[in-house]
């Protein structure tokens, strides 16, 4: 859309395009700017179609297990997305999820539904506090975020083991049903509703707020953002707080879908959450990407091992295939961006 300056005076090249744009042009521009918003649904539909092809008896039960399997990963991806968009990284997400998971399972066992909801709010607050500690450590100590959150990740992992040494605990069935049940029909798992409601309740208003704008700004160019009047340190801490909040929701989701607390279950989600972020089109350099891509990517990444099991492939070999597929998806995304940039 950039008017190439092949001819004419400098004044001609001052503006990128005429100000009135047709609906079609706006659509093309949206596709160009947010490729993952269009690419990821296509990828998800394709992988669902592939699953049905491999496994024609795909039932409501398979959909429920997909939704339950993807729920914690989607929240881990959401947690990482907020920080990565702000130009940082959080390697403690899995451990923070583990803390939330074991806290919920150990406190809610034998309690009523109302009490459990109150405890869930407490767990969310603790999650946000964990994020605040991460953020303050990164900002105040000036230790690079990779190192700082790797370290706190190890600390939160230890805390989770201190709270609950062995897998155990539980929660009332009504509470578990928030993430492991169905609503109206067996084809609508509550996990999907929980995910959609909590992400849109937090992310949509945030995205439209000044704080959301500041997340993108500091991720894109920290110096330019500072000169525009953004308090960079405060904004970075805020990003980690939201990361902690999403991690805590993910931990609660883990409690709902597994029914227990497991101190080591969360650890897996740090790396696969990061994979979902990258597959979902969020730039690790910061400033670019959205929330829809990573969350849909979490479903795609959950489908891959399922499909490999349906195909009777050795799970150890399946892990290799999964890695290859992640690299391939990211590479294709990169080529598409490159091809567009050269046009």
């Amino acid at each position, binding site marked *: 859309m950039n008017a190439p300056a092949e*001819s004419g005076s400098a004044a001609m090249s001052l*503006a990128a395009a*005429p100000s009135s744009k047709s609906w079609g042009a706006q659509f093309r521009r949206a596709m160009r700017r947010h490729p993952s918003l269009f690419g990821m649904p296509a990828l998800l539909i394709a992988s669902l179609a592939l699953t049905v092809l491999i496994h024609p008896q795909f039932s409501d039960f398979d959909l429920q297990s997909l939704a339950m399997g993807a729920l914690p990963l989607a929240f881990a991806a959401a947690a990482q997305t907020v920080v990565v968009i702000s130009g940082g990284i959080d390697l403690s997400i899995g451990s923070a999820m583990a803390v939330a998971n074991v806290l919920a399972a150990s406190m809610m066992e034998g309690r009523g539904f109302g009490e459990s909801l109150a405890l869930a709010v407490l767990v969310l607050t603790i999650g946000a506090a964990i994020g605040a500690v991460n953020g303050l450590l990164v900002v105040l100590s000036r230790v690079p975020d990779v190192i700082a959150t790797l370290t706190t990740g190890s600390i939160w992992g230890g805390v989770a083991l201190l709270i609950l040494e062995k897998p155990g605990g539980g929660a009332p069935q009504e509470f578990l049903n928030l993430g492991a049940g169905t609503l109206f029909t067996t084809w609508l798992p509550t996990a999907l509703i929980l995910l959609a409601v909590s992400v849109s309740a937090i992310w949509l208003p945030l995205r439209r707020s*000044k704080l959301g*704008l500041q997340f*993108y700004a500091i991720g894109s160019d920290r110096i*330019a953002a500072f000169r*525009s*009047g*953004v308090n960079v340190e405060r904004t970075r801490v805020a990003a980690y707080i939201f990361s902690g909040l999403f991690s805590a929701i993910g931990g609660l989701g883990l409690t709902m879908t597994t029914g227990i607390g497991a101190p080591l279950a969360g650890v897996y989600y740090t790396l696969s959450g990061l994979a979902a972020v990258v597959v979902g089109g969020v730039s690790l350099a910061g400033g670019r990407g959205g929330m829809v891509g990573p969350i849909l990517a979490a479903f795609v990444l959950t489908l891959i091992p399922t499909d490999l099991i349906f195909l009777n492939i050795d799970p150890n070999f399946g892990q290799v295939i999964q890695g290859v597929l992640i690299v391939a998806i990211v590479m294709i995304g990169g080529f598409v961006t490159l091809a567009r940039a050269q046009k």
Partner: protein
Amino acid sequence: MSEAPLLLEVRDLAKRFGSVVALKAAALQVRPGDVHGLMGANGAGISTLVKLITGVFPADSGQILVKGAARTFRSPAEARQAGIVSVYQDPALVPDLTVAQNMRLAGASIEAVRKWLGELGVDNLDFSDIVRELPYPTLRLIDLARALASEPAMLLLDEITASLPADLSERIYAMVKRWRGRGHAVIFISHRMAEISALCDRATVLRDGVTVGVTERAHGSEDRIVALMLGADPATVAAAVSSTVTSHRVPRDAEPALEVRGLRRGPLLNDVSFKLYPGEVLGVAALEGQGQEELFDCIAGSRRYDEGAIFARGRELKLRHPADAIRAGLVLVPANRLLALLQQRSIRENISLPAFGGLRDWGLIGVRKERARVASAVARLQIDTRASSELRQLSGGNQQKVVIARWLASGFNTLLCFDPTRGIDIGTKRQIYALVRELAAAGSAVLLFTSELPEIALACDRAIVLFGGRVVAEMPAADADEASLLRAAHGLAPQLLAAS
């Protein structure tokens, strides 16, 4: 203090970064309705002074007084509230946000920015465009419009015209005058003496982090300003200024060091051909975006061309990578020094990086040989090596010298200089052009693009003018005065008229 009260006063401001003293004792007095020039050689501390005044970082000592009251700003946002706004050397717009989002981020009113952009001659900007996708001159104007929208009593412009085409610079001058007419003050920073003398009421000169003088009238004090900047007595300076280059005849029967035939690439480069002989400096003049960047990139091997051929000393080259061009003796000095240098490594490593081929001894780098070569290049270019551990601590002029020094150390046949003096002070500029002449006298060929047209006659033997990706004029340096170059660069060359 008989005159109007000072709007801004700076007393004894000092700042050091680690071991490097950026500012020792800066003083500045600006009255309302004053366009105040701020000048100094590279590394004199001008940019640091601007950043201290606008709260980018805190001063170590000294005072900033606004309307007589001492103030400390902890961020540019605080300075803005006090009516002090700066347009920095590089755009302060966040690349991944739209223009509108950037305005919202900074708390600027979109209506006001749109109005000021209109005044600057930009009417059709779509505020939903992403900043990354907009051309550089537009970003400068958006930056300026955003600053104006907050109606600052004190506007600081740090080299805003440094890489703008002439017509846009004119619009900025007009706006500066208007701002003065409203009774506001402007601090105008530029390395172009003509701008300072035409625009400024007063000028303050810094040297090595110290305010060395203030001229009450900028116009007519050019010699004094240059003398203050260089720290030399007026006689030597005058001698240096008048020592223009005497071009010498180049034997045309010799084999060209570089020949380009029918080069095309994409929409911007359409059929460029020329020959460059050993011992010659060939100037390239063009307005913004006429294919000069593509031309240099193609010759230096960093972009591939669609059609045409490039010959070095009679042999056709296949350039797939900058390493191929370097091997053929074609080396590039880019305008953006950040593209050529390793900012976090030492001067020595930066200079010897491309030379490792010749310094290797069974795979290991010969330390003694390396030191000797680097030392001779550093001495020849008079590089200030006080901060030698990390290149990013050097001033822009010294960094540019390092770029040239690395090619001196590794050897070359043809030097491709793309706007080598962009944002560089007069003293260093003169050194760089003297060096270019010296290299040519020693038999090297130099292809030189510069955005400052008067420099063509100063440094070159011959000049070609690009317009719309074609060579539209060729002239000996003696005829390449600013007016003829400008006419040709706007596509008004007689050759073109005859052809159409």
